[in-house]
């Protein structure tokens, strides 16, 4: 860390001595009582209090988290860049932010661990025989071009810091639904299985939940998509016609708007199968509900977290922001979020912060040799369990689609409204 700070001092000559002194000498930080404060806007997924405290501790700066629902966050970020320094969200909001000129390109040179970041984000494939998922695959949005567009062509600047990512699918209560075989019997189609009528939920986001539904509809043979990642208006109409039909028949319990919400739904028994995020699965398991995160044979719906730098973040705040970005890839945070089921773009560095059983289970897809605890202290993995979908590599070799903001986004909004409100 000290070398890093010295770099800063070199690079930012403008910085007043006092200020830099506070950076260089943590002791003086306290005495001066004026640390730089960075404001981070994002979702509950990455804006966790434990991370914030550790970051503050490690970096010696003030960090303010402003977590919120993704829409709220996005709106705030896209219309008021001055209100934040860093923006944490998903890759599907990249286009919007970029279009809104809310963020500034990140200099690769300032990123300490750039070389360690794997090919998933840089090239789009984690390994040679991986599928390329449909939709807004992050590699397509990574590099900023001189003409102001984003593409996969490498350059000196990137639009976002690659860090947290994961493959999502649906979760089901194995006490009610018999356990399936990953990649073979488990399928997105289960979401529309009449057996579970009345006990199915989707995540309330047209850029996410819609694709769960679309995958289910397609695998059941109810309709075909030319490009699921960019549906036409007709395709949207048809998809929603099918979904409305199901909703009217009472197939869906409803939609969930937050991770705790989804946990509650399955815990109370109101749903037995639903779109899920990984931390919800861990939480349920820790509370004794045998929730299984499926590995559908059609492939996963993947998402990539993006950490963007506000257009308005300058000076020491910018420096602090870069420090935070580098901290994320420094190993400990990666291990932390691994216990919640998330992957980090440079996993090797985080490996030393994880126990062998943990690494074996979370990254290598091996059976857990002992009970593993989640970040909430509860046991979330029982001995002998295998992570559904297998290893990190295997999972990311099977991405069907990425969370995406389609051209028909606004259209899907009103359709989604109809879907939600139909009784």
């Amino acid at each position, binding site marked *: 860390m000290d070398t890093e700070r010295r770099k800063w001092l070199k690079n930012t000559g403008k910085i007043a001595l006092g200020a830099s002194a506070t950076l260089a000498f943590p002791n003086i930080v306290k005495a001066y009582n004026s640390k730089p404060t960075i404001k981070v806007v994002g979702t509950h997924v990455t804006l966790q209090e434990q991370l914030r405290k550790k970051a503050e501790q490690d970096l010696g700066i003030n960090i303010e988290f402003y977590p919120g629902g993704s829409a709220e966050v996005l709106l705030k970020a896209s*219309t008021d860049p001055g209100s934040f320094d860093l923006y944490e969200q998903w890759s599907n909001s990249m286009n919007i932010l970029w279009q809104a000129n809310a963020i500034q390109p990140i200099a690769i040179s300032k990123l300490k661990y750039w070389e360690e970041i794997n090919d998933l984000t840089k090239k789009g494939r984690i390994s040679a025989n991986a599928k390329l998922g449909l939709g807004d695959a992050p590699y397509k949005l990574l590099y900023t071009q001189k003409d102001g567009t984003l593409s996969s062509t490498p350059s000196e600047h990137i639009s976002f810091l690659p860090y947290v990512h994961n493959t999502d699918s649906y979760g089901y209560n194995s006490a009610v639904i018999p356990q399936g075989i990953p990649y073979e019997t488990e399928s997105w189609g289960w979401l529309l299985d009449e057996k579970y009528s009345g006990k199915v939920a989707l995540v309330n986001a047209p850029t996410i939940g819609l694709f769960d539904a679309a995958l289910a509809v397609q695998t059941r043979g109810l309709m075909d998509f030319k490009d699921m990642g960019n549906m036409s208006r007709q395709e949207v109409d048809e998809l929603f016609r099918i979904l409305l039909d199901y909703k009217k028949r009472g197939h869906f319990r*409803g939609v969930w708007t937050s991770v705790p919400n989804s946990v509650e739904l399955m815990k109370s028994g109101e749903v037995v199968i639903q779109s899920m995020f990984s931390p919800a699965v861990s939480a349920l398991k820790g509370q004794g509900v045998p929730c299984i995160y499926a590995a559908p044979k059609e492939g996963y719906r993947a998402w990539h977290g993006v950490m963007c730098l506000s257009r308005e973040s300058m000076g020491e705040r910018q420096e602090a922001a870069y420090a935070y970005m580098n901290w994320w890839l420094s190993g400990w945070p990666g291990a932390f979020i691994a216990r919640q089921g998330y992957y980090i773009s440079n996993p090797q560095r985080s490996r030393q912060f994880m126990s062998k059983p943990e690494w074996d289970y979370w990254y290598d897809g091996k059976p857990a040799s002992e009970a593993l605890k989640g970040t909430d202290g509860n046991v979330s993995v029982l001995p002998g369990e295998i992570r559904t979908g297998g290893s990190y590599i295997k999972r990311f070799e099977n991405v069907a689609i990425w969370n995406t903001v389609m*051209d*028909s986004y606004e259209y899907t909004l*009103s359709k989604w*409204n109809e879907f939600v*409100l139909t009784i």
Partner: protein
Amino acid sequence: MFKKLKLKNRIYTGFIVVGLISLGMAVISVVAFYYANNNFGYLVQFSNKSHLAVAILRDVSEIQRQALIYTHEGHQSAANRVHEIHQRISAQIKQESQQDSKYFQDIVKHLDTYVKTFKQVQQQRTRQAALVHSEIRILASEAENHFLKHIVQASSTADIETQLNNQRILNSLLQIEKYAMRYFDTLDSKDVIFAKNALSQIQKSLQTIQKQDAAKPVSEHILQTIQFINNYEQVFLEAVQRTRGYLFLINVVMSAEAYEIIYRSQRIDRQLEQEMNKIQQRTLSLMQQVIIVIISSSIIFLILITVFSILISRSITIPIEKLTATFIALAKGSRLAKIPDYKIQDEIGALTEAAVVFKGKNKQTEELLAQSTQLTNDLERSNDELEQFVYTVSHDLKSPLVTSMGFIGIIQKLAAAGKMQDAIDKLDRVVSSNRRMGQLINDLLELSRVGRIETDKTTIDLNKLLESFYQNHLNQLTHTGFTLSFDSTLPTLYVNESRILQIFENLLVNALKYAINPNGSVINIGASETEEHQLIYFKDNGPGIAKEYHKKIFGLFYRLNNDKEGTGIGLAVAAKVMKFHNGSIWVESEPNNGATFWLKFPKINKETD
């Protein structure tokens, strides 16, 4: 069962039991009606809640509709409606549900989130409207103006290509506006991309122009145009973001909240329906049960009353009736009245005992009465006897007195007439009659001395007695020519010796006087017996006694024949002696066939008094 219960207590117990049963029934009824009332209360409550749930359902659809109208049309009235409805629902829920039902609390939470989000929507939309309707236009027109001015300025120096270029730029400007506005109408993001591309194009073109004219002083207008175009782009993008923002809010966030409210309302409604049905069922079955209970307990009650009346009558009224009958009979003096059996030691028991005593007293009274009657009879008889006795005595005693005085009168007259000898002759008559009077009086005294003689009784052998009697009267017998014989098997008697002798004495005297048989007078004494008595007979063979005189001869001073001597007291004495021996004497006789006098003695072993 209740051996020592007093009547009063039993009756009270009965009444208490009856009262308790009634009370129990009343309590059951009251409790049942209380429950029913409660249930109806619940029903009303539930109905109200259900009503509320339905109202909420309706209102939520309305609120969302208004929200959408506001979102698309921007009508302020719609926004006001949204808030209005929100207020109304909140107020209603607060009024109705108070503490219970988690659902209602959840609904309120969702509703609040909904409205909060809506306020954001309002914010965004207002801003967006401002941007779209004024700022963008202003900027657009400003940009156009300035560029036009530039064109005008450069028209003189510009070549045709430049002029064409400028024209193209102007057209593009207009295009951009078209695209931009189209987006806000159609919400097709392609328009945004078109607009953005167009803007980029224009910016590039303007940059080129600026560089071209590097030598010349840069047109003020071009700079302005560039400025305005940049601003325009910024504002446009902001408007787009805001649009997307509030669209997302209303279509995704708010609709999710609304749906949750709808879902919960439905659940409430369904739940309430179930609850109401359940309550209805419960109440119905409760009422049925209560009716059954009341009917059956009424029946039981009636049966109990009947049984109880029977018990009471059995245990109280019937005994009373019986006792009353008994007492009436007893009061009439009956000693045979049946006393009803009664084992319980209560008032009736006491009465029963009294009845027993009463009966006993009646018996006693009757016995006493009998005794008294007996005594009275005896007394009467005695009185009669006495009267008879006095009459007889006075009559018989008076007779010699009359004779005596009569002759004395005659003597006086004779003497007065000088017939002295005749007078003296009559003196004998006076003497004899006086003598007779003296005899009579002696015999009376003799009779009176025949009193109680139990203490003087001894066991005598009759044979020996008669033997000596015979010896004593031997002279007399031979003198009068009478033969006296007696059986050898005469019994022993427990009697007073002298008195018995007296009887035989008198019988003999009478026989000697009256039982003379010209062919030879014979007297025979013998014995006979029955189970309880000894019988001795004194038989003669004289002229007999006519039946009409069989009783009379035992009368005091009665003589069949006044010729002979004697006062006629002999048989009377005999009768009295026999009476005092608890025996009797009578005669059996027919004229010309002798007479047999029977003496009856009770047997010794019988102690009759």
